[in-house]
């Protein structure tokens, strides 16, 4: 997921910044806020939301309400961050801008690095589905590869490594929550030391080597779960 070293170093600072900067945004007494609603979120709030989203998805049966609320909040934040290149135009307290600058830069770099490794694993899954037609998979494939099964939509979230992560990747998120996916070992572990919420998610999975048997199993699961989408229906 996110590069451990970078995130761990920055974590405390980011969190503090997030709390102070964001509560500044929400401080009703501040003249700038009173007139215009906060235009841009800090990237820390964005990161926090992404963390929450992943943590939520990692549950065996995600709390749908929590998930939907986090996703909608993430959408709002993302919308406010486009275009990402310039810094927030609204005047910020003098101490914040330089720190925010470097935060944005570093977290982008960190995110890109980790996304690349995640996408590598994504390629394995896509390879499986391309069995009749193997595709070249250099570079960030994003959603350009056809035949990606719909249950991988959630992975679209960390889509192509362009500036803005969540272009419309969130649409891919909501399939009928296919829990077999989250049992899959292809998910990278959460960064250690990060606390997305009161429960500390287990973060000890390792990225495995996929062997033949596991690939076959994965194929079965991905194909088989399509049939499991329908809810049981007495009286429907």
């Amino acid at each position: 997921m996110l590069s451990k070293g970078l995130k761990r170093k920055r974590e405390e600072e980011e969190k503090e910044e997030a709390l102070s900067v964001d509560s500044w945004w929400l401080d009703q007494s501040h003249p700038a806020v009173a007139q215009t609603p906060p235009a841009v979120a800090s990237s820390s709030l964005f990161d926090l939301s992404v963390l929450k989203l992943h943590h939520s998805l990692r549950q065996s049966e995600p709390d749908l309400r929590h998930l939907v609320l986090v996703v909608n909040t993430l959408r709002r934040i993302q919308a406010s961050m486009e275009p990402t290149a310039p810094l927030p135009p609204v005047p910020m307290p003098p101490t914040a801008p330089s720190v925010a600058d470097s935060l944005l830069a570093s977290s982008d770099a960190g995110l890109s690095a980790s996304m690349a490794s995640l996408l590598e694993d994504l390629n394995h899954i896509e390879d499986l589905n391309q069995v009749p037609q193997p595709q070249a998979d250099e570079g960030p494939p994003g959603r350009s590869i056809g035949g990606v099964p719909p249950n991988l939509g959630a992975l679209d979230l960390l889509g192509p490594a362009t500036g803005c992560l969540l272009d419309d990747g969130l649409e891919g998120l909501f399939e009928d929550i296919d829990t077999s996916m989250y049992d899959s070992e292809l998910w990278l572990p959460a960064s250690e030391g990060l606390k997305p919420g009161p429960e500390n998610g287990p973060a000890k999975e390792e990225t495995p080597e996929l062997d033949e048997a596991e690939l076959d199993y994965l194929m079965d699961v991905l194909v088989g779960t399509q049939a499991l989408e329908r809810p049981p229906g007495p009286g429907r």
Partner: protein
Amino acid sequence: MAGAGGGGCPAGGNDFQWCFSQVKGAVDEDVAEGEVLSLVPSKYNGDQMTGWYGHRITVYHVSLQNKGRAHSRGEYNVYSTFQSHEPEFDYLKSLEIEEKINKIRWLPQQNAAHFLLSTNDKTIKLWKISERDKRAEGYNLKDEDGRLRDPFRITALRVPILKPMDLMVEASPRRIFANAHTYHINSISVNSDHETYLSADDLRINLWHLEITNRSFNIVDIKPANMEELTEVITAAEFHPHQCNVFVYSSSKGTIRLCDMRSSALCDRHAKFFEEPEDPSSRSFFSEIISSISDVKFSHSGRYMMTRDYLSVKVWDLNMEGRPVETHQVHEYLRSKLCSLYENDCIFDKFECCWNGSDSAIMTGSYNNFFRMFDRNTRRDVTLEASRENSKPRASLKPRKVCTGGKRKKDEISVDSLDFNKKILHTAWHPMESIIAVAATNNLYIFQDKIN
């Protein structure tokens, strides 16, 4: 209206003076995370109240002996305690279903026994709680210890006699309503016809008949054809107290839909739609989360309904869809802390709310073991605390005040000192008497009004 809890005046009608009555629950019990004592009174007579803790239900009952004594309306004592649900395994999804109970609702009492519905994430059960204080003796075909007697040895017939025995309270499951919900059940509500009830999960609402367990009718379905388009879930649902064809359900976007079951079999089209327009000056990234409704309750009269969102309680007139008729701030001082509360997930806490018997007052919980009462007539409100320190018999509760900034007065507590792990999610009001119950972590507090 002051958001931080009014001045020294207690609320709740004509100058109530709330004082401590009882506390239930072990003092030093370690609370497993996620296990909180919750409670619901029987809205039919208030003599029964049930608390539940994880999967264990405890029914409290007012002892008849103490009733009628001055200064005491009677004590609630444990009547029965039982485990409602077992952990289950969903083989289809390879998932364990938690036995943790989400909701309990009482049924109206029709005979000596009491019935209640309890639900976990997937399955609803109907429990019968009955007393046995007599035992039959003198059977012809078996001995007192149950051994069968040889029919040829019987020379005379006798009529069995009922003899008193120590009171035994039994809880037995009478119906199990299973396999109707794909998503997590968040509400159950008994209909005023006393024959049907509804169960709601995140995306669907089903209608059941209490006698029929192998069939239910789906009456609301908001699942989109494409789950990628999902943006809203159902958060609570309740039947109207008098009109058996009317129910409401609330959503994570702060809307309430009222449906009439007579209009069509599938009530996807609402008869009424309640939503308050967003205040642009208070918009933030968390606007949607804090507008998500965690509880909806009809007034006893059926004319109003009350909704609880993260920061406020709103009273709606069923005849006016455009905005609530009253808005009461529960803990407005948290508005500037939303980011931290988002980070530690407290912003997702689901608080409930309740009416008093005459619908003149409403009550809801907050953090730091505080709970709030609002008098709708006098417009006064008060913040009270449920704590062991204030728990001397008949000790009056002192109003508490949260200091939002600037100089903190004596006896005030500052926002930053609030304990967000001590949350009161469940409160209950006796339908006829001035008795309230408050569930704080693993303790159940009961308070009475001293004056009336």
